[in-house]
């Protein structure tokens, strides 16, 4: 019946490709433009928050935490309003996760404070005695990669028209200016709210530890 096809590798391969590509075309493309529109009032991430998102990726928080509240009463009671597509419009990549060994974090900024995060990341058991989450003490020492986060902001502004202001420009000089005039003051505010002397001292010396960026990012999740 199909023997002729099995003797013709070229037609066979074309056949396979059409059959497997079909679903993707029908399922993915139609919705593409619509699903990426931001909800009203959504602002792009600040560079400090982007650096925090990089820490979130680097220490791979999505291995255990989701950012997707499903439309069930049990979830909205626990975590807050269910998630909307437009809230993710500036998330590249998306960070929904696929496993909840720990709780969802999509609105964690609503119910945790910077000093809670500071204590929790230093020693999870100090705030949740039965926690099985590891401590992330290295985030208090490692300096956040602000340059790469800034590069990301420049890139998405240029390539995807993400609405950043004129302060985001390519080049080292523009980055250094932004770092001193925007990023450091923002980090200082977070560091003060974290109530941790060492972290505050580090920021006052002009260095931003990973934990400050991460907390800035977590505070943004609302």
């Amino acid at each position, binding site marked *: *019946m199909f023997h002729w096809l*099995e*003797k013709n*590798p070229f037609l*066979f391969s074309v056949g*396979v*490709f059409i*059959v*497997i590509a*079909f*679903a*993707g075309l029908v*399922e*993915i493309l139609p*919705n593409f433009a619509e*699903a*990426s529109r931001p909800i009203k009032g959504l602002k792009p991430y600040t560079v400090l928050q982007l650096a925090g998102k990089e820490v979130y*990726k680097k*220490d*791979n928080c999505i*291995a*255990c935490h*989701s950012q*997707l509240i*499903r439309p*069930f009463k*049990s979830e909205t*009671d626990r975590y807050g309003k269910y998630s*909307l597509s437009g809230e*993710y419009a*500036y*998330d*590249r*990549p*998306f960070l*929904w996760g696929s*496993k*909840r060994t*720990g*709780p969802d974090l999509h609105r964690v900024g609503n119910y945790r404070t910077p000093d809670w995060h500071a204590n929790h990341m230093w020693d999870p058991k100090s705030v949740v005695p*039965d*926690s*099985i989450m*590891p*401590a*992330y003490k*290295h985030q208090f020492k490692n300096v956040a990669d602000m*340059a*790469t986060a*800034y*590069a*990301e902001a*420049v*890139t998405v502004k240029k390539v*995807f028209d993400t609405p950043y202001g004129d302060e985001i420009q*390519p*080049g*080292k000089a*523009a*980055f250094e200016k932004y770092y001193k005039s925007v990023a450091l003051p923002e980090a200082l505010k977070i560091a003060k709210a974290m109530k941790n002397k060492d972290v505050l001292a580090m920021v006052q010396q002009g260095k931003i530890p990973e934990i400050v960026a991460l907390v800035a990012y977590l505070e943004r999740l609302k």
Partner: protein
Amino acid sequence: MQSSAALEYDYSVAKLYMWTAVIFGIVGMTIGVLIASQLAFPELNYLFGEYGTFSRLRPVHTNVVIYGFTVSGIFATFYYSAQRVLKVSMGESKLLNGLGYLQFILYLIAATGLVVSELMGITASKEYAQMEWPLDVLIVVIWVLWGVIMFGLIGMRREKALYISMWYYIACFLGVAMLYLFNNMEVPTIFFSGGVGAWYHSVSMYAGTNDALVQWWWGHNAVAFVFTVPIIAIIYYFLPKESGQAVYSYKLSLLSFWGLMFVYLWAGGHHLLWSTVPDWMQTMGSVFSVVLILPSWGSAINMLLTMKGEWNQLTENPLIKFMVLASTFYMLSTLEGPIQAVKSVNAIAHFTDWIPGHVHDGVLGWVAFMIFAALMHMATRAFKREIYSKSLLEAQFWIQTTGVVLYFTSMWIAGITQGMMWRAVDEYGNLMYSFIDTVSVLHPYYTIRAIGGLLYLIGVFMFAYNFLMTATAGRKLEQEPQFRSPMA
């Protein structure tokens, strides 16, 4: 499928991949047991500083077992069996053989780069597509080389009709190429930032919900085209070869192949049920997941019926044991998946340990068992030696089977328990449990899972020893065995 005496097959590239399969198997599964133990005993997170936490190590585990162990197994079996079903030797073309070596070297570089970058935390963070853009480029080169070699061999073939295994290898090549390219579309930031920031960093072309859609179109179908399609290629070659039985039904293999190709791609939406992707896509994902039972079971039943009238081999030959149980686990796993894809079940199962449970009855019971059996079968032909120890293989089979059963049963219970506790309400409609209650309750199941994993890992070490001894110290064979692999 008679081996032709005149043709001397060249297994040099196949052998290299056989060794990497064994080595990556040990590395990947050792890390697996470590991270499983970390969930039960969190103190184990601090063995290697910031590089030893569960979160850092989990992608190292998944990437090493997928792209190290499984893909090595796929390439090893391809370089071994493609020559034989096409009736052409790699040795006949210096060019193709050279490209084979080149592909292997690039593969080693990419695999090492992947492990190091994941440990460093340099990651694109999409599951099973964590590689940053320089590694992505390298992987595309490796894949294209594989395609050149595959179609080069096909172009030189003496056997005109492509055997079933070749259909599946071709599908694996095309499917992964398409999915990988589209999912990894990303913009390197260094090209736009005016020299600011890390050179290897990139941002995804897609945002939010779209990114999720493309990612799970990939994520789900990576399971299709890495854990299913090429493994079916393996069983279609090695089960008939080892048992001396002809494939039960050509029509069933035809139906299963084209059915699987068409249906599998639609089912990706079942990873995004109750999320912000449109409802109709979620429903399509659910419906096609259930339809997927047909082609999956078609292949599995075709394999089981191939053993018709020869079931005595199951008691006599441990390699047949591995392959028949693998088929059976494939059936279990492809029934369990569709059940989890039903929206109401998914509401409980999603985000819980039932999902890793499901993954592991598939990969430990089906994928890895097939690769172990194929490696041993190939060893007798490629090294021209008898399998070193039959009793060791038998022991490995039973220890690993026990391990798999402990793994998935504990994760079933853990997942359903947690899913139910998350939604439990008291008589006034308030949530009954705080989140941490639903974590503490899992401790015994995490412990059992770690023990199951450890048993499986012990089996892997037994296998590695047996394989090493077969290759170096097994009794020399004068003549290539036609069917059953001889073992001491």
